[in-house]
């Protein structure tokens, strides 16, 4: 009697249907966790590796050189003995591995012996690594040129790595300039266009076609915009590889997103506000200015956040139109007239990341730079997005209905 559970009217009755329902919920939950884990790993990885470049162990804890200097060649002097021994160990390890691979599956003992040997070599290698890192001398290009005498060649092995010294200062400045310029252009054009589409245009076939084409434009790959910008602004208008060409190319790229989102947020405003305003004798433009745009602003800002993230992150559109792999001068240096400011190429973080990770071989010295640049980039985009979000929340608090 006691073992038998009391079954009342509302007792839970397991069934196939309920099981499937429970499983479905877990499936959704799992999918979400996978996404969060992947994203979390990505950010943690970049933040962890990048922080080595951006932060230092001593006050002020932020590596200002990395944030302000331009990229330089890194000159490395490593203790010769350690390097040479490590090279020998490397060769030996390769030889042993090959030997082990050639062994048949029957020769287990021999395989185990090789494994032991490899282990011993690896621990020696690691020990040497500590010595090497402890004693090595690193010079950025400017420091190297200022050296009175280079370290003795019989003690140190010399090597150099492009882009691995200095910092990403000009790229940060270039990215900020590109984002601000292109977002200003895109928001101005986009909001004007959205106001026309949602408030003035007559609904009908033509409008739907226009809307559809704008929507489709947002699916065009960014490299296509890059080529368009190259053909149009760089060559046809003759602006050359310049910030202005980059601004317009990026602006055109994000326009569809901004137009669509702004129009959506304008159309979401209740008709009552427009009617109420018009019935009081307001003109159409007054109504839009006082009773449509202010309430649509949060939506417009949301679209601009998406725009900023895209503009800041795209490499392809600026590759041909605005970005230099390396530029010695900052944008405001060495201008003959003020208009030159707009007609100069700039360095940009996404392009810089592309260059350092795709155009130069990877090793421990370049990796710091790669991750550091990626980390700084994430922080900048996060900063832009955060300020827009805060602005949006403030405006939304002001106009709530």
């Amino acid at each position: 009697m006691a073992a038998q559970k009391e079954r009342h009217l509302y007792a839970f009755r397991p069934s196939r249907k309920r099981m499937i329902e429970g499983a479905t919920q877990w499936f959704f939950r799992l999918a979400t966790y996978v996404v969060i884990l992947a994203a979390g790993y990505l950010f943690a990885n970049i933040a962890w590796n990048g922080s080595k470049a951006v932060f230092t162990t001593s006050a002020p804890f932020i590596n200002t050189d990395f944030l302000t200097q331009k990229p330089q060649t890194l000159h490395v002097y490593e203790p010769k003995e350690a390097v040479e021994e490590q090279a020998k160990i490397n060769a030996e390890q390769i030889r042993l591995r090959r030997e082990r691979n050639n062994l048949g599956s029957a020769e287990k003992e021999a395989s185990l012996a090789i494994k032991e040997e490899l282990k011993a070599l690896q621990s020696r290698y690691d020990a040497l690594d500590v010595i090497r890192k402890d004693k090595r001398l690193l010079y950025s290009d400017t420091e190297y040129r200022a050296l009175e005498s280079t370290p003795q060649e019989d003690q140190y092995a010399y090597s150099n790595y492009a882009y691995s010294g200095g910092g990403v200062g000009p790229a940060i400045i270039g990215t900020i300039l590109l984002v601000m310029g292109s977002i200003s252009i895109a928001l101005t054009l986009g909001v004007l266009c959205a106001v026309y589409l949602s408030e003035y245009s007559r609904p009908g076939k033509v409008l739907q076609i226009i809307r559809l084409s704008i929507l489709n434009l947002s699916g065009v790959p960014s490299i296509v915009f890059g080529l368009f910008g190259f053909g149009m602004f760089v060559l046809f208008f003759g602006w050359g590889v310049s910030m202005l060409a980059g601004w317009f190319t990026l602006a055109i790229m994000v326009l569809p997103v901004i137009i669509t989102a702004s129009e959506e947020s304008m159309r979401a405003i209740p008709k009552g506000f427009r009617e109420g305003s018009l019935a009081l004798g307001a003109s159409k433009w007054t109504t839009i200015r006082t009773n449509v745009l202010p309430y649509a602003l949060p939506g417009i800002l949301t679209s601009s956040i998406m725009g900023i993230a895209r503009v800041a992150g795209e490499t392809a559109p600026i590759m041909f139109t605005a970005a230099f792999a390396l530029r010695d001068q900052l944008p405001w240096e060495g201008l003959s007239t003020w208009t030159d400011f707009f007609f100069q190429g700039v360095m940009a973080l996404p392009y810089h990341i592309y260059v350092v990770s795709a155009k130069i071989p990877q090793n421990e010295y370049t990796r710091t730079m790669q991750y550091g640049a990626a980390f700084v980039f994430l922080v900048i985009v996060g900063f832009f997005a955060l300020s827009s979000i805060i602005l949006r929340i403030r405006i939304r608090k002001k106009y709530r209905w």
Partner: protein
Amino acid sequence: MAPPKDTEKKQDARDVIEVRDFNFAYGNAQALFDVNMDIKDKEVTAFIGPSGCGKSTFLRCFNRMNDLIDIARITGGSVKINGIDIYGKEIDVIELRKHIGMVFQKSNPFPKSIYDNIAYGLRIQGIKKKNVLDDVVEECLRGAALWDEVKDRLHESALGMSGGQQQRLCIARALAVKPQILLMDEPCSALDPIATAKVEELIHSLKRDYTIVIVTHNMQQAARVSDRTAFFYLGKLIEYDVTDTIFMNPNNEQTEAYVSGRFG
């Protein structure tokens, strides 16, 4: 209790709105057929009728709110206000709407402060002097019997008010631009009986200074507030007469059926 009607005394009042053979269509769907009507100065005129009979459409013709609907068009006839054809040439809709205020079915205060809501109509006309605005805000809120309820929170959001207060705020907002005619499109349809009573009281007190045209679903309301009543059915004006006649002794069978609740 509604005060006694004074319609008889004003039998010969001036006609403010004169509608002649008015036809109106949405696209190909005719919404109004040959409407003829004279609306008298400083009276309350009520439009009653079942849903979709065209009474709101007709009301929105008086301040050309239908211009906002692309497919809407006039297919014949004229609407004259103070003797001027409002669909004629050289009519500035903006000027027209300044003189003909409107209150909508769903109260639509702007998501701004109470003060800014009332001042809106003046501000868009370029009046920015604070003392002028202050006076008008107080005058309008008093006119809409709202002053005592909100005088301590003029600068709080209008959306924090109750539904009835919001609707009266919309009336006050319409009064701020000093219109001659006030159009009300089912102003009480979303309000509870107490709020409705307050709005009706307000309509009564406004009658002295404004010509009011009100659309209502509520026949008792029409009987309570209006001097004249028009009954619409399927886009046609069936009967238009002094309210008492419409409700006590209608000439038309359909009107009688409707006001006695047999259909509609």
